[in-house]
């Protein structure tokens, strides 16, 4: 049972942390339409995390709510990949983080449609429509920035250099993922590597960008070993619930 809970929490944490990061852009985007697009994606992701936390809470069956899971766990309990907790940086960094993740998430959720868990596959079906749009949006922007000006090309290349080491973790399954695969609940993330690589290669080709060589992979997030950035994100996000516990808001 534990593997199931952890697997769902892992999916939920990915969505919440990335959604939270994107929401930091709200009001500060490079142009109004893209400000709205960033917030739109943030809304989708936080919305997805809610469905997943609700499912996790029902699996856990301890009377907890989505908010208990989001607001009362600490860094070591969060199971999101390191990629999604990385700071927004400039627009290029935000776009690239989004693209690397969307390309993975899109194929993951497609396979989750066939999950043995009816509720999870229903969430996947609903989320997939949104994720399909996210991937299209982030792909288009990678192409724009890669192909655009010298400056945008330099910036997206810097983003690739900064974020590439965090991409590999997506494809290294945690123990709970492997068990979830065995039970037909989850997807073998290692098996998504090829689909992901093709997606990246196609878009990078169109964007005049080189796919980096395989390099050292930063990992640990799936098992609660995070970068130092996550603690600050949680401190901000959880502040009110922690300062005034047990209240309705």
């Amino acid at each position, binding site marked *: 049972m534990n593997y199931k809970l952890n697997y769902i929490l892992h999916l939920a944490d990915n969505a*919440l942390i990335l959604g*939270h990061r994107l*929401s*930091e852009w*709200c*009001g*500060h*985007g*490079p*142009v*109004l*339409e*893209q*400000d*709205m697009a960033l*917030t*739109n994606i*943030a*809304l989708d992701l*936080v*919305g997805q*995390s*809610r469905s997943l*936390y609700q499912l996790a809470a029902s699996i856990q069956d301890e009377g907890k709510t*989505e*908010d208990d899971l*989001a*607001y009362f766990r600490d860094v070591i309990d969060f199971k999101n990949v390191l990629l999604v907790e990385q700071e927004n940086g*400039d*627009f290029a960094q935000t776009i690239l983080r989004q693209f690397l993740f969307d390309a993975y998430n899109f194929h993951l959720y497609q396979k989750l449609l066939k999950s043995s868990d009816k509720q999870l596959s229903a969430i996947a079906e609903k989320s997939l429509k949104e994720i399909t749009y996210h991937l299209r949006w982030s792909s288009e922007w990678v*192409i*724009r*920035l890669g*192909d*655009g*000006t010298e*400056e*945008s090309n330099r*910036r997206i290349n810097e983003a690739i250099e900064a974020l590439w080491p965090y991409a590999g973790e997506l494809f290294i399954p945690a123990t709970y993922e492997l068990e979830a695969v065995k039970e037909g609940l989850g997807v073998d993330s290692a098996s998504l590597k090829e689909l992901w690589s093709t997606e990246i290669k196609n878009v990078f080709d169109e964007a005049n960008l080189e796919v980096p060589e395989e390099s050292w992979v930063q990992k640990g997030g799936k098992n609660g070993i995070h970068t130092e950035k996550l603690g600050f994100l949680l401190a*901000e*996000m959880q*502040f*009110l*619930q922690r300062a*005034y516990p047990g*209240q*309705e*808001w």
Partner: protein
Amino acid sequence: MENNLEQAFQAKIDREEKIEPKDWMPEAYRKTLIRQISQHAHSEIVGMLPEGNWITRAPSLRRKVALMAKVQDEAGHGLYLYSACETLGINRDTLYEQLHDGTAKYSSIFNYPTLTWADIGAIGWLVDGAAIMNQVPLCRCSYGPYARAMVRVCKEESFHQRQGFEILLTLSKGSDEQKNMLQDAVNRWWWPSVMMFGPSDKDSPHTARSMNWKIKRFTNDELRQKFVDVCYEQAKVLNVKLPDEDIKWNEERGHYDFGAIDWDEFWQVVKGNGPCNKQRVAARKKAWDDGAWVREAALAHSNKRSERLKNKKVA
């Protein structure tokens, strides 16, 4: 000639027909509208900042989603309004420049800080509430594109107002600390909200002309009175005290009397001396400047793309 045009224009307005972008209009009408609509658009955009300030700290996932959606609505309002303004022959980039260099104004209310979560509720209840009072009559404004933009905007504003009220209602039923937060937020937001209707009628020289042109349907003081009347009743439901010792029912007038407005504070904030004027404009300017390379890249890419398509066709 000009005179005839002007008479026909006014007659059209008097018949409650809409003025459309291609119609003849007096230069002063056009200028008044550009100033008003752009101020309104800038207010939507600058208004994203104080509320956006709490998105990352919203106390529950439900509230986080609702707040993001709300702030995003405001961005959408900004978009409609900039488009409406562009129909008068000025482009969005020029309007931004005016905001950034201080020649254009926006609603002073957004120059106040959001200090606690209750401020998010107070903004929804009072600021969106005041915006509705101002904007519902604008749905009947004589300028077609502005009137139509306002119809869409008003639907969403009333949703925002209810959402803000509901945040406060939840606090009003909570712990002492939450009730305290609620009262404190109302103390800070009440007077600036009352001031949102602008200077008193006697200090508002353009009101008569705007009413004649049916840009405005009610005077500032009429709208302000309506706002006070409505809020007084709602404050009772929230169990919160409006910070005005002089507010009381006037049987004869059929309205609530209320205390004197601190016009000195009002003009100080308009002049740029509010608690957050500098930060708000700086944040907008920073977003715009930091985004310059992104906009250039998008433009360069789309030019290259059409170039490539053209070459393909030729080949």
